[in-house]
């Protein structure tokens, strides 16, 4: 391992820029003549728009124009789409309702944009927005996914507000296995709705160049090429070659910046219409109302076991709330990113998972860190833990008995796990967590009046998204390969152009580490370019822990091509045959001789082309590669959470956290550890603190950070983090991905620990002090009666 190669804890190259305030975020970019957009949003969860009167607003100082949904429709701007087709059990396609970027006829959630005011300043736009008079006919709304079927019908295309009724697995085999089971564990689970809250709010800046008839969009996107494709091919604002999308520095995404949103479409439309650049930056309260939320499942799950605790079958029925419209990838999250992970780390012969997706009068729901996999892990890991308690088997032991032990392993829910060692991560985690000493610690807590509990989560996820053919067969509208270009400059420095996008992950460092190692050049001599459709070849962006597993695999291929070409150049320079050229540590050598050429010399020769005829070897040193993975990757591990519950107040304190993860090859252990920490924090947030609440009228009760609780440093202990390693056989570097693991593993670990502490399974997320106290009140009379 070199000091800057794969496996080295290289300090993040990008951090100097970020910590000294030199990042360039969308809102930092200013264009000459720029105007500011403020959206007029629906205050009602569901209403018919009778009329929008913009006359007073248009006369306000500084106002350039006020545009409405009717004008958008008149200009034939297309609807936003969901790009993953799901078919119901009966074969019918999902019911995708029209989603205009500005509502013209009806509004369907509080925050649904109705009009946009464009003015010289934000303050002027905001003043004018208050003068836009919208005459609403308020209609009854439905917000609870469990009641969506019987609620008022939101969209004409979706009777019973049902988008699809989908299923995966063999229901008959599952029924038979349950009939033969010795023990059945049943759980009702609500996977709480979450609001992403990336530190940088969403923003868009659109500019039209009449000279070239081109539109440029700077926006907070995790995948600028996909944004360009959707805005071009479906929304129809401009053909792809007339639209440039730039996602500059982006401050966190967690999934919420994957999607194509109304605001960027409206800014592009307005910029061309008004011939002025148009900028919009969300306020935090606007982010609460307009960013796609996450999770929001209502589930009933059952696990069948034999007398020895061997799992026979799993049956799951989930209602997934997709909100008022189908967001870009919303359909895939509760289906192929959820049910396919229901086997967990276990050898489960039969699984049947039904998912009904419904519309409600809430913000659209889509992928949020983990996307489907946290929900699946929560179902499986709660069931296994509860089954162990009910059967009087140690929870770790019950897991051991059911672990998959040989690979490849075909689950009954599509996935073929290619590598893993679940015993190893459990064992290591139990040692690090000192599970043996737990009972002693529990007694010590009891002396202080505290209830101590321990909870496991042996999670699995499918990352490295994804083999294009496989996802295509499941309904995905795009391929999920990745691209890389390696440009070697005449002086030997290197630019890497990647189709992935970094918004906190540190690609400028990790991708450069790979180049530094493979080409034997200093890491300072490598720069990474991403996020600009004019600079970078088409790419699929960053989500689903895919950038290292898929993006760096493409980079490996491109580097290999560059080395091949460079060897040819070196052969000419060294007057040897190409087959005799060896490349090592940045030096080309003729095998068995002391004749050599340095990397920089070969790079220069590739461009000056003095040593070879251009016909048989093209000048230049630049290669592009596209990499399509052969399988998903399967990061897995074991998290152990230990809590102390204050029985008097119900407050939970996490006192120990152990995470042992198998991410395959680790490129930069420092960055990986940071990803694990952040993931756990988000998972703990879901388990203890966060929960979006709508009232029955569809008003968002948790509409600000005064009511929506984000995790803070003091909510978390210091983590004990360890790694095990089985390399992924499905990509050249053996990488599995680490971005979502913590968020996937954590919720089940926390709830398993709390329920262990209080002796009741009746705890919902977020397990706030009030929730746990209420659970204790329900359990204590029962205990007293039993005593």
């Amino acid at each position, binding site marked *: 391992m070199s000091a800057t190669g794969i496996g080295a804890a290289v300090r993040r190259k990008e951090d100097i820029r970020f910590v000294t305030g030199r990042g360039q975020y969308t809102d930092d970019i200013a264009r000459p003549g720029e105007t500011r957009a403020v959206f007029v949003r629906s205050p009602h969860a569901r209403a018919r728009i009778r009329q929008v009167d913009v006359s007073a607003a248009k006369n306000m100082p500084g106002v350039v124009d006020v545009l409405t949904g009717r004008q958008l429709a008149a200009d034939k701007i297309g609807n936003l789409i969901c790009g993953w087709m799901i078919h119901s059990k009966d074969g019918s396609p999902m019911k995708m309702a029209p989603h205009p970027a500005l509502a013209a006829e009806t509004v369907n959630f509080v925050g649904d944009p109705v009009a946009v005011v464009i003015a010289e300043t934000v303050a002027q736009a905001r003043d004018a927005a208050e003068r836009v008079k919208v005459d609403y006919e308020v209609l009854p709304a439905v917000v609870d996914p469990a009641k969506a079927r019987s609620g008022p019908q939101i969209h004409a295309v979706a009777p019973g507000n049902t988008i699809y009724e989908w299923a995966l697995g063999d229901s008959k085999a599952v029924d038979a296995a349950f009939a033969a089971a010795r023990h059945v564990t049943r759980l009702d689970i609500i996977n709480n709705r979450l609001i992403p809250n990336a530190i940088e709010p969403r923003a868009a800046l659109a500019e039209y160049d009449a000279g070239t008839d081109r539109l440029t969009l700077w926006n907070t996107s995790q995948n600028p090429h996909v944004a360009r494709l959707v805005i071009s091919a479906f929304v129809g604002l401009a053909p792809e070659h007339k639209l440039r999308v730039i996602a500059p520095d982006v401050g966190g995404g967690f999934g919420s910046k994957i999607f194509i949103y109304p605001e960027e479409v409206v800014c592009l439309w307005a910029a061309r219409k008004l011939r002025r650049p148009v900028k919009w930056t969300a306020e935090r309260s606007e982010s609460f109302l307009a960013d796609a939320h996450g999770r929001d499942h209502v589930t009933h799950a059952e696990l069948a076991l034999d007398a020895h605790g061997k799992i026979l079958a799993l049956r799951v029925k989930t209602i997934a709330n997709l909100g008022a419209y189908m967001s870009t990838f919303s359909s895939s999250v509760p289906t192929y990113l959820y049910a396919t992970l229901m086997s967990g780390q276990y050898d489960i012969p039969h699984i049947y998972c039904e998912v009904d997706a419904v519309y409600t009068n809430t913000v659209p729901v889509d992928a949020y860190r983990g996307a489907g996999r946290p929900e699946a892990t929560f179902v499986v890991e709660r069931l296994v833990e509860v089954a162990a308690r009910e059967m009087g088997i140690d929870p770790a032991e019950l897991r051991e008995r059911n672990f998959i032990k040989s690979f490849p392993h075909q689950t009954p829910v599509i996935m073929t796990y290619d590598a893993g060692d679940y015993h190893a991560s459990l064992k290591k985690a139990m040692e690090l967590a000192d599970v043996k000493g737990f009972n002693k610690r529990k007694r010590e807590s009891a002396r202080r009046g505290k209830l101590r509990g321990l909870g496991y989560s042996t999670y699995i996820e499918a990352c490295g998204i994804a083999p294009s053919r496989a996802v295509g067969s499941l309904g995905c509208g795009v391929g999920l390969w990745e691209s890389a270009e390696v440009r070697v400059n005449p002086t030997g420095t290197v630019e890497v152009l990647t189709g992935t996008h970094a918004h906190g992950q540190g690609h400028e460092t990790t991708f450069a580490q790979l180049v530094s190692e493979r080409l034997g050049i200093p890491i300072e001599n490598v720069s990474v370019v991403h996020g600009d459709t004019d600079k970078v070849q088409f790419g699929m962006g960053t989500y689903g822990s895919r950038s290292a597993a898929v993006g760096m695999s493409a980079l490996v291929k491109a580097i290999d091509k560059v080395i091949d070409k460079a060897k040819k150049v070196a052969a000419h320079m060294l007057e040897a045959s190409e087959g005799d050229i060896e490349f090592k540590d940045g030096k080309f050598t003729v095998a068995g001789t002391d004749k050599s050429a340095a990397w920089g010399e070969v790079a220069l020769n590739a461009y000056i082309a003095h040593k070879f005829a251009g016909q048989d070897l093209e000048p230049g040193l630049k290669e592009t590669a596209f990499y399509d993975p052969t399988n998903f990757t399967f990061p897995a591990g074991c998290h152990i959470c230990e809590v102390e519950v204050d029985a008097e107040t119900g407050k939970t304190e996490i006192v120990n956290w152990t995470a042992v993860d198998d991410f395959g090859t680790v490129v930069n252990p420092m960055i990986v550890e940071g990803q694990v920490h952040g993931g756990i924090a988000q998972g703990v947030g879901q388990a203890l603190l966060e929960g979006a609440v709508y009232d029955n009228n569809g008003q968002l*009760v948790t509409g600000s950070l005064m009511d929506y609780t984000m995790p803070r440093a003091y909510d978390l202990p210091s983590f004990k983090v360890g790694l095990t390693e089985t390399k992924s056989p499905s990509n050249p570097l053996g990488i599995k991905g680490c971005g979502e693991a913590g968020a996937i593993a954590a919720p089940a670990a926390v709830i398993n620990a709390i329920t262990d502490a209080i002796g009741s399974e009746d705890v919902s997320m977020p397990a706030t002090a009030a929730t746990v106290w209420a659970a204790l009140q329900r359990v204590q009379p029962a205990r007293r009666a039993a005593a």
Partner: protein
Amino acid sequence: MYDFAFHRPTTVRQAAGLLARNPEAKLLAGGHSLLPVMKQRLASPSALIDLSLVEGLAGVEQKGRSIVIGAMTRHADVANSRVLQEVMPGLAMVPASIGDPQVRNRGTIGGSLANNDPNADYPAAVLGLGATIITNKRRIAADDFFTGLFSTALEEGEIITKVSFPIAKKAAYEKFKHPASGFALVGVFVSKRGSEIRVAVTGAGANGVFRVKSFEDALKKRFAAKSLEGMSIPATGLNSDIHGSAEYRAHLVGVLARRAVAKATA
């Protein structure tokens, strides 16, 4: 935020004059409650009268058997006051529990009391110690000052200048933080000064801070946590929201009162 005029008087008299001439004006003390609602356009005062340059409004000092705190004293300065730490650390616990360092370095005692947020911490200390609010016009006893949700006995044009706290031998504050905002979901301040026992509760009451007579009576027999064993208050009239039911808050009042007494007697 809508447009407003901005004034920076240097004396209380000037400030009072400005307030008299601008009936729609608001005093700016720390701004941590006022500015957010202005930014959200929920409040639109015609003018802000910033009190930060007014002389003599900040400081913590002992005067005989009282601690006198200037209205513009920042929470951090009260929390870190050496004299207060010496004579009545229980009172210092209150500003120390407010918000985060940024809030504690801007927010003021006068601003907090004049606003009388039902979840604010200072009202519990003021009522729990039987303090006196001193304004440019008069002295108001704590028991008469808090008149309901965001409402006080302050009249038009009246400016808090100081708060005088009698020094209690035993005093402590116990707070259960609202998980999101950090305000008091429930906060209980207890004190014993001679035979005077006070228990004041913030965060729980639908009408703001209140005293708990039953607890005070129990503590009069013996000022010890044990005296409150098993006691709580009725849930009627308490706040109930997504962060805690009225029953939970009622229960917390008992738990926190016992803990506060234990702290005060430790």
